[in-house]
């Protein structure tokens, strides 16, 4: 048996030179320090994404897009398909947990300054993955074609219309018409199951490749630490097994959430019905939505809503480019201003999200 395994390995090595890769992997190590816990959130995000892919494909077996079939097919999945309820609930819960994990991952990288040279592009690809995840969330939210999703999409897409000159045209392109209709549903579905997964997979691959090539970032304090004081653990199997342990716990949490808090389907969307009270977007968009709501109608000759969109866009771009403008101070330490900005952003997001829930 062992001989057969060796033969097989040699067969592959002869053709694909995998020995070098194995060698590389076996020597790969992960820094061990008091902030090591944050390293795991990238893996958690990846694990939840894998669950998304698997359960998403399973849902696709029964989901039929269309004004007359979307809601009905989801209802069929949760009530008639064997374990359909479980798959759908795990899908919905893992989607939300994934966004949460991605946010935690991003802020941990930000505060530990793991984005600094030479990992600028890892940060950029990571930020792109976050944007894509949010687009995944926004497009997927409409797909069950229920009341809440319908009106939340209506309100969400309306923001696009506030952009001057091109806003109206852009809105028609996004919605596939003046209003949120079956056409919107079709294009959101296409975006959600074909376009986004394609782009996401490529960027995810690049992101992971960068991480593998460069390894985990060491904390900035280590720059002054003698090499013998720096602690490492092997990536394989130590780090990977710890990763697996966490994944298993998360899988169990998902199962508990799916059984005790099955994801509600709500009422079918009725475009002619009045919007129900308290319509608001998913929690991860709430800080933006609440900001736009609190803005006055006019800010410095600009429409309030557009001003908000503009500020968020500029802030997003600055956030994306943080590795390029965060510089060392004269004393050699990294700029503390970055930490204050990050803290402000984090508190702002949390406060606005809470306000979004409380004020409605």
């Amino acid at each position, binding site marked *: 048996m062992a001989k057969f395994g060796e033969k097989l390995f040699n067969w592959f090595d002869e053709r694909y030179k995998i020995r070098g890769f194995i060698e590389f992997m076996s020597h790969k190590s992960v820094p061990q320090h008091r902030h090591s816990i944050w390293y795991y959130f990238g893996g958690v995000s990846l694990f939840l994404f894998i669950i998304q892919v698997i359960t998403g494909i399973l849902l696709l077996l029964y989901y039929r897009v269309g004004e007359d079939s979307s809601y009905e097919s989801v209802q069929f999945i949760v009530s008639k398909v064997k374990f359909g309820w*479980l798959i759908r609930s795990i899908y919905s819960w893992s989607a939300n947990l994934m966004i949460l994990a991605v946010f935690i991952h991003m802020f941990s990288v930000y505060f530990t300054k793991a984005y600094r040279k030479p990992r600028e592009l890892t940060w950029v690809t990571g930020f792109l993955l976050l944007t894509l995840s949010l687009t995944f969330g926004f497009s997927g939210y409409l797909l069950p074609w229920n009341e809440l999703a319908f009106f939340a999409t209506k309100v969400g897409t309306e923001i696009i219309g506030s952009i001057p000159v091109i806003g109206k045209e852009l809105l028609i392109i996004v919605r596939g018409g003046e209003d949120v209709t079956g056409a919107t549903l079709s294009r959101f579905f296409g975006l959600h199951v074909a376009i986004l997964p394609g782009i996401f997979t490529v960027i995810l691959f690049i992101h992971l490749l960068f991480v593998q090539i460069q390894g985990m970032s060491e904390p900035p304090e280590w720059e002054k630490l003698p090499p013998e004081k720096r602690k490492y653990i092997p990536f394989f199997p130590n780090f990977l097994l710890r990763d697996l342990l966490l994944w298993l716990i998360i899988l169990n949490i998902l199962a*508990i959430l799916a059984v005790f808090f099955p994801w509600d389907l709500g009422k079918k969307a009725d475009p002619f019905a009045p919007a129900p009270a308290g319509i608001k977007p998913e929690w991860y968009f709430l800080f933006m939505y609440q900001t736009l709501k609190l803005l006055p109608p006019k800010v410095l000759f600009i429409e309030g809503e557009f001003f908000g969109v503009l500020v968020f866009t500029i802030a997003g771009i600055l956030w994306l480019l943080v590795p390029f403008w965060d510089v060392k101070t004269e004393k050699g330490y990294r700029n503390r201003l970055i930490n204050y900005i990050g803290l402000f952003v984090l508190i702002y997001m949390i406060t606005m999200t809470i306000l979004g829930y409380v004020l409605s």
Partner: protein
Amino acid sequence: MRQLAVLIISLFIFIPALSQTKDGCYNCHKDVGDKTAELYSGDVHFKLGISCADCHGGDRTSDDMEIAMSKEKGFIGIPKGGKIIDVCLRCHSDDVVMKKFNSKIDVNQFKLFKASVHGKSEIATCVTCHSVHNIKKVSDPASPVYPTSEVKLCSRCHSDANYMKRFNPGLPTDQFEKYKTSVHGQRILKGDVKVATCSDCHSAHDIFKANDPRSTVFAPNLPKTCAKCHSDADYMRGYKIPTDQYEKYVQSVHGKALLEKGDLSAPACNDCHGNHGAVPPGVKSISHVCGVCHALNAEMFSRSPHAEVFEKKKIPQCEICHGNHLIERPTDEMLGVSTKSTCIKCHREEERGFEVAKQMKDMIDTLVVRASKARAILDEAEFKGMDVSDARYEMNDVPQILIKARTVIHTANLDEFKETIEPGYEIVDRVIKAGLDAIYEYYFRRWGLGISTLIITVLVIALYLKIKQIEKKK
């Protein structure tokens, strides 16, 4: 002494008449042989000393015709159209003037009339009904509005199809013909003035269309209109009919629907008894009368064995079980063989009918009980968060089946009844199964979670120990 008495009485009678001898208008017109003046001598107003000039204007004291009938003296000639009413209401709407004549006539007549269907469109004026120059008291048998004459008076217009077309082409013109067939009509033809005539139901001056809520014959107002006479025991004494119909009707399912819920499709008195041709429905026609609304029940009853027997024995059809004026919402208790059942009024134990009634009741009770059990199971499943919407939807058919079954009992046909009710049992069976399956699924999910949590926990512990082991080696 006797002669003195006659003189005093005669003076009382003739003093007003004597006063007219000073009326230039009357004297002159009478002298030239004017028939109007002759007619006026019999008018109620003439007897009260009211002069021609009081209505037509002019100067009653002048012997000179030119002066007496001059515009300067206010002569208006023959009033036409609305002017006629103006002339009458000058006195009849004036409380002070009417009191001078010791009149008890209501001074609001004009106000009422003006709002009525006749007054609003100026179809009629006072003289149309009360006549002119020969007006009598309403209680005077010679008056055209005296009960025995009134129906003919109204029919003058209302039975003339050509005339009525001008005002209301949709209004039937057979009221008088129907009235003649009614108990009221037949009695009045015999001179009984106590029975209802047109104005007793429609009122006199304030007549409105029957669908006008102000009308005394508007469906929700009608029972009270009829009850004016029919609930008055003193007034009805001598007719030998009960006077508790209204009292019973207001408690009935029909009365509650019409009077409490305002459901205008519910029957008032006239819907069963007829309006102008009002008679109590005969024994044979009860099912037809009820069948106007309860068509399916009537059709089923007509092909039941009861129909023939009831007819032979002159048993009032629907009424024998449901009653007449006090028809209550039928309950399942009415069926079967309990003391509250109506079936046992005729059927005795060991009879076929007794057995059929018993079986029908048992089957209905069974469905009711099982349906309620099914609902309780669905409630429990929903409480546990399970989706049983399909079963809940299917359950909607059960009340329909129960309604159908409760209707089919009118056929008294057990086979037809079973055919109707059995799909209900099948639905309930399926719903109970679906509900129990959902509850089972609920526990299955919890057990599944428990087992998978156990497996994952074991794996987590194993992995943790493995990690510890690896790290220890190093």
